[in-house]
């Protein structure tokens, strides 16, 4: 099973990377860009557990390790085909 995890800054938290990238894109002439957010993406391969277990376990991993829930939020999907 593959867990696909997205971590992004919470609303209202400054995203310095997004800001700098937005600036760069504007300079490069991409005037259509109205905003950029830069976050993290993680793929975690899980073996030998049920989808239900995986739900709780991945949630736990996110809270403990992947996301800094003070400033970041996370979401994930589980893909049992992979």
């Amino acid at each position, binding site marked *: 099973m593959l867990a696909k995890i997205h971590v992004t800054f919470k609303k209202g938290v400054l995203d310095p990377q997004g800001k*700098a990238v937005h600036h*760069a894109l504007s300079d490069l002439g991409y005037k259509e860009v109205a905003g950029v957010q*830069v976050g993290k993406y993680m793929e975690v391969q899980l073996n030998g557990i049920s989808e239900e277990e995986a739900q709780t376990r991945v949630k736990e991993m996110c809270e403990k390790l992947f996301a800094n829930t003070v400033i970041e939020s996370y979401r994930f999907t589980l893909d049992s085909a992979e």
Partner: protein
Amino acid sequence: MNCGVVVFPGSNCDHDCFHVLKHVFKLHTEWIWHKGGQDLSRFDLIVLPGGFSYGDYLRAGAIAQFSTVMKEVIGFAESGGKVLGICNGFQILVESGLLPGALMQNHSRKFICKTVLVRVENARTPFTQKCAEHSVLNIPIAHHQGGYFIDPEELRRLEENGQVVLRYCGSAGEVTGEFNPNGSVGNIAGIINAGGNVMGMMPHPERCADPAWSNLDGQLIFKSIIHSCQNGVSV
């Protein structure tokens, strides 16, 4: 000899490079602002200094490669001008395609600042000709993304062409994993382009070139460049 030191927003070894060129080696040295618009042809050497250009957000050097001045630096290099990229400068050179490969996050995932040893693999470049072949230099590193990467095919070509100029090593010159601070393939610390006029290196020669310190190994790099600019050198 005219030297130019490029200033990107976020450059922070610009002053150090400027200081060494101007005050230690007494060379005519000018700042080159990242917004471009200068004719670079009057320079003999352009230095891309260390630092965190544009914050190094996203990837080190990723944003700087698009600054106006980099178009001009690329033109300068293509017409044979000498370009030295140190640390962030090296990262910008690979991002902009002037040098092959990529620089990845250190294996430790930590910033590393300390003095390391590097072996001169090719002492016949304009940047190293004052070093003895296979001599070992003491030079500080200070980076977060210094792990050199290149695919095996291209690596072979680099090696065959003598484009690998510096490698991390032990005090007897031994090139082993133990002395690799950042996970670079083949312990690579510095490379040169096929044309022999663009060099990128992670270690900071400007940090060991001022006589206020006892270690002056970095001077060899600058002396090499000065010598080759003044006498010309064939690669």
